[in-house]
């Protein structure tokens, strides 16, 4: 089912992303930040996609530890990789925006810091996966579970420590002209995410099947 859906999703995402620049160009200008604000549409969308991917990874990792289902493991791997990819987009677009609106490339506020820490957790998941050798699926699943549990704690602790980032109530208070554009971008990111998840999970499953055949041949 998923296999047939992937091309459809990719084409739809391409259309959404192709039209997004025009929508963003025509969207109303923000009062204080002006044109810089327009990076918001991609920044927040990719941040939410990263969150989603992190949750998927943590849940799939827990499922793998509990049931040892290989599908869960492949899902967790795909989700961790995509969390790192979309996190990289967030961490690149963020400083660009911050430089113009706050005057600094980097500010150690709650959301920025916890995004960085989360991104590092999932990067360490991938490093472990790649370099730990035999049994790295189980080890990285443990990291996935822990990353899921610790992320809210990271956020909470940095939040008490310092806060400068626009708070979540920006989203409901968006003027209608902006909200529509943002939702358009978010849908594009989510479709791209689902398509990439499906592709990456399938790749992981094929790799595992190939490894099995390889082992069977050696025996």
């Amino acid at each position, binding site marked *: 089912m998923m296999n047939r859906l992937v091309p459809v999703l990719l084409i739809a995402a391409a259309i959404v992303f192709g039209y997004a620049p025009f929508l963003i160009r025509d969207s109303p200008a923000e009062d204080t930040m002006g044109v810089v604000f327009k990076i918001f549409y991609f920044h927040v969308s990719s941040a939410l996609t990263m969150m989603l991917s992190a949750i998927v990874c943590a849940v799939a990792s827990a499922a793998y*530890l*509990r049931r040892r289902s290989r599908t869960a493991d492949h899902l967790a791997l795909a989700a961790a990789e995509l969390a790192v990819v979309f996190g990289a987009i967030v961490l690149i677009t963020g400083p660009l925006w911050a430089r113009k609106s706050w005057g600094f490339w980097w500010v150690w506020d709650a959301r920025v810091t916890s995004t960085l*820490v989360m991104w*590092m*957790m999932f990067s*360490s998941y991938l*490093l*472990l996966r790649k*370099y*730990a*050798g*035999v*049994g*790295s699926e*189980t*080890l990285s*699943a*443990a*990291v996935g*579970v*822990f*990353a899921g*549990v*610790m992320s809210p*704690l*990271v956020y*909470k*602790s*940095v939040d*008490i*420590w310092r806060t400068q980032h626009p708070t979540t109530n920006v989203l409901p208070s968006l003027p209608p002209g902006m909200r529509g554009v943002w939702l358009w971008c978010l849908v594009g990111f989510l479709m791209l995410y689902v398509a990439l998840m499906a592709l990456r999970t399938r790749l992981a499953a094929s790799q595992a099947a190939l490894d099995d055949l390889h082992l069977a041949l050696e025996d």
Partner: protein
Amino acid sequence: MTRTLQAAWTIARKDLRIEARSRELVYTTLFFAVACLLVFAFAFVRERPIDNAAAGILWVALAFSGTLALGRTFERERQGETLRALLLAPVERGAVYLGKLIALLLLMAAVELIVVPIVGLLFSAPLLRAPALLAGLLALGTIGFAAIGTLFAAMLVRASSRDVLLPILLYPMTAPLLIAGVQGTAAIFADEPNLALAENWLAMLLFFDAVVVTVALWVFGAVMTE
């Protein structure tokens, strides 16, 4: 439950006895912590130590030396090839984890007993301003750090390149504990101390520890299967 705790204590006592005979870990860890302090002195002392540096220096020295100790506690089991025997023992997996954790905590406590006063002396930190609160922050911070560290160190025993993977995993994961520890301690050490804030961080640490130990116990049982 009591049986699990008894088994955990037996394992901890075994580790502590080995340590008492060689004193390898406690000496090397302690000296490493002091070496860290020396590097911090180069970085953070101008005419006198720069303001409010002591809390950060203390916690970074403890986190670094703790990482070193963590790697070594399981290295012993690996060298003696005794980890499998330990896991085959007819006790709950949780007991093995708790035993290792208790031994590590006592070791880190011994190191802290010496490192903390040294920080007080070298970086003029007012240790005696709220001694009970400071001890509480150190104890809870160390418990959380060691609880995560013991789990990852155990997982990585058989992994290649474990020496570098352990800190890579550990520092992002322990970020909330380190933040709470440093900020709580800094609130005590500040020129205008804010003890209520430090108590807040202490309560946060207690909550973090409860979460971390619960999750770590479950994950340890699920991961250490062979």
